[in-house]
């Protein structure tokens, strides 16, 4: 039942960067009082440059939005952070290019220029994709495009880049720019990792599992609302963060809502195989110094039944 | 033919009038000294001639050529030495030449030697005594190529002996190079020893109270300082100065 405001437990959630439709459930839960029902007073924080993972791991924030690759690398470095729910069941990212560039499959990457942010992961993933089609990753030029956004980059020396379709792809639709897209999931099951996820730190789980449960219960209710009523959910996000581009939010929400739960039994469910597959893949490609103990990296124990 | 003509020049700073209708002609090759109370406007007159200031009224011409507000026509020694602190003495005295062409450092060295600054060529201004700085500024003015030289109290910080040396030196240069010299001093002896003509300014607003033509033939030597005639003229000038002071205050 409802608890009075002064008994509410204060909880901080840090986002991964700026608010977007990945976070709709959290905003809905906050606005609709789902968190309050659970006795929580949730404060949603944009971390800016502070980096959500460190804040969560250090306990400065109770929960955070992260992604599987980050948590994997963090855990390898003994950062005590644990994934507690998958926000989206399948990886919605992929390599996008304007149709004019004529890139319809990884085979076409040869002789083209890819704009990334200089991570070794990128080259390995690209090479996995290209290997499948007998293309040579060495014939691909990889350029670091730093802070510049997708649309800017492809105007200039870059042919394709890695985007989340649910946001950047939708923006392209809004602009009427046709994109070619190669989703990672279409080429390798191993690359179907969770992004984003909700995370907390080990201490929180050990000391205050009730709060973790309560938080996930509220969040799950929020995301379920977003799944059922995309438009209303988008309106809530826009109301909470009025400086966002409302057209983009609405359209993105419609695209993303069905993908939160997708083929899973319940929202937030994570599979050991997904964690294992991707970390093994990373290890095999020398992207990790040691093997990840995948069982410890995530938990489904606190998801509502 | 009068070389430097100052006609009816007046100037004020804000509401204070400093010079009131000053008329002065200095002929080619003449040596004219300006005497006047402290704060009367002697330096200001030099600033007008040099073009640093523009008169409110009146004109200044050189060889019948109007130069009111024009710069670079005179070689100038300011009342404070104004040496550049980042230059050695040698480089400092060469400045006047540098500004108008090529510097002759050999000649400059010789001049420094003559002024007793031979050991200080490479010293910086702050290593010099007050009188030594003044001598350096004096040499800088002598080395500048212009034919009109304006000297503002050039020897005020020198002892009597060094001063006499410098005076004689100035006279020899003046005669040799046919310069026209305008000279400010507070020392009546000095004025009488050096000049062809002495102009006495009043308290401000300054105008010319009287002009004296110095009656001694050249070359002069120190002995005239002790003659009766000398003392006579000196007294005369002294009282003129007094009168110029009295007028206003």
């Amino acid at each position: 039942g409802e608890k009075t405001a002064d008994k509410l437990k204060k909880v901080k959630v840090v986002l991964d960067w700026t608010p977007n439709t990945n976070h709709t459930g959290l905003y809905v839960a906050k606005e609709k009082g789902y968190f309050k029902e659970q006795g929580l007073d949730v404060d949603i924080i944009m971390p800016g440059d502070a980096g959500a993972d460190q804040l969560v791991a250090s306990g400065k924030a109770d929960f955070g939005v992260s992604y599987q690759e980050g948590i994997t690398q963090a855990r390898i470095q003994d950062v005590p952070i644990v994934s507690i729910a998958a926000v989206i069941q399948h990886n919605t990212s992929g390599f996008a290019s304007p149709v004019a560039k004529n890139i319809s499959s990884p085979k076409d990457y040869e002789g083209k220029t890819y704009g990334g942010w200089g991570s070794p992961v990128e080259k390995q993933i690209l090479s996995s994709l290209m290997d499948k089609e007998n293309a040579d990753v060495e014939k691909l030029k990889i350029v670091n495009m730093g802070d510049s956004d997708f649309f800017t980059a492809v105007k200039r020396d870059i042919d394709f880049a890695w985007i989340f379709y649910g946001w950047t792809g939708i923006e392209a639709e809004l602009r009427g720019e046709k994109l070619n897209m190669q989703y990672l999931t279409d080429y390798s099951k191993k690359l179907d990792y969770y992004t984003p996820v909700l995370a907390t730190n080990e201490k929180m789980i050990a000391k205050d599992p009730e709060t973790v449960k309560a938080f996930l219960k509220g969040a799950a209710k929020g995301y379920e609302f977003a799944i059922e009523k995309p438009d209303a959910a988008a309106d809530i996000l826009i109301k909470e963060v009025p400086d966002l581009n409302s057209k983009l939010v609405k359209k993105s929400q419609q695209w993303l809502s069905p993908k939160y739960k997708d083929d899973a039994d319940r929202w937030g469910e994570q599979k050991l195989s997904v964690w294992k597959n991707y970390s093994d893949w990373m290890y095999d490609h020398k992207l990790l110094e040691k093997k990840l103990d995948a069982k410890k990296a995530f938990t489904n124990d606190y998801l509502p039944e | 033919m009068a070389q430097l003509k100052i006609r009816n020049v007046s100037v004020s700073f804000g509401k204070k009038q400093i010079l009131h209708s000053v008329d002065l002609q200095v002929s080619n090759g003449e040596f004219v000294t300006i005497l006047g109370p402290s704060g009367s406007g002697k330096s200001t007159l030099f600033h007008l001639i040099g073009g640093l200031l523009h008169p409110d009224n009146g004109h200044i011409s050189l060889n019948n050529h109007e130069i009111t507000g024009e710069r670079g026509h005179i070689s100038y020694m300011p009342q404070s030495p104004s040496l550049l602190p980042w230059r050695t003495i040698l480089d400092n005295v060469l400045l006047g030449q540098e500004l108008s062409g090529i510097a002759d450092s050999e000649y400059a060295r010789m001049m420094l030697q003559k002024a007793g600054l031979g050991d200080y060529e490479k010293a910086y201004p702050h290593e010099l005594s007050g009188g030594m700085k003044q001598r350096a500024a004096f040499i800088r003015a002598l080395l500048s190529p212009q034919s009109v030289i304006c000297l503002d109290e050039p020897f005020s910080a020198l002892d009597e002996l060094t001063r006499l040396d410098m005076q004689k030196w100035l006279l020899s240069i003046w005669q040799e190079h046919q310069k026209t010299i305008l000279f400010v001093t507070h020392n009546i002896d000095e004025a009488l020893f050096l000049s062809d003509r002495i102009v006495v300014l009043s308290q401000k607003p300054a105008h010319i109270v009287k002009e004296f033509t110095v009656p001694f033939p050249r070359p002069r030597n120190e002995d005239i300082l002790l003659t009766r005639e000398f003392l006579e003229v000196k007294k005369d000038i002294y009282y003129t100065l007094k009168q110029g002071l009295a007028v206003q205050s």
Partner: protein
Amino acid sequence: MKKRWSALWLLFFILIVWDAVGRWTQVPAWLLPSPLKIFSAGLEDWSRFYVHVLSTASLSFVGFLTGTTAGLLAAILLHRVPALRQPLYPFIILSQNVPVIVLAPLLVIWFGFGLLPKIIVITLVCFFPVTIAALDGFKQTDRELVHYFTMCGASKSQMFWKLEMPHSLPSIFSGLKIAATYSVMGAVISEWLGSERGIGVYMTLASSSFRTDRVFVAIFSIMMLSLLFFFIIVLLERRMVAHQRKELG
């Protein structure tokens, strides 16, 4: 009067050229929106936007104050305690070389998401130019005046307050001007340490949702704020370094 507004005219001109070039070369609006579009976006958003502006303005003001105070104190300390100068000077330089992406998590972990870490960031940005400029100003105090004060037995603190401080005011103001300019950008950066309000927040949101027009609204307001701060310092300077203005035309 005309001259005073020349910068505005130039701005106006630039905006017109910008608009024209935008139309001509058909730069897409998401890359470089036309000034008109930016202006209308600004108007439209104003009711929500001014909260951000106020927040950033007050943040930068507070940060500027603490930053420059810290900068002045550091300069005074290093100047008056020479024993500290050698060991501490390098660390002052080092403080300018800790990237915010590293500092940010540490600051948040130590000081939370409140005001303090943000003010620390702005302080770090603002104090440096003031310290360097003030130190250099102190060092250049006129030698003759220092000698005079020493001879008169001025205490270290008299020397400082009556001589070195007023003497280096122009230099300090030069540092303050640089700091004032940086303070607004410093505030925007500090808002990335997790903030609900502020131009920085508005701008990242606009940028991440591809609203280039709003990004430019943010930039223009950052610019206006900085200019405002800068000119407040210039006004202060004019009042406090008044004697310098009374220069001959």
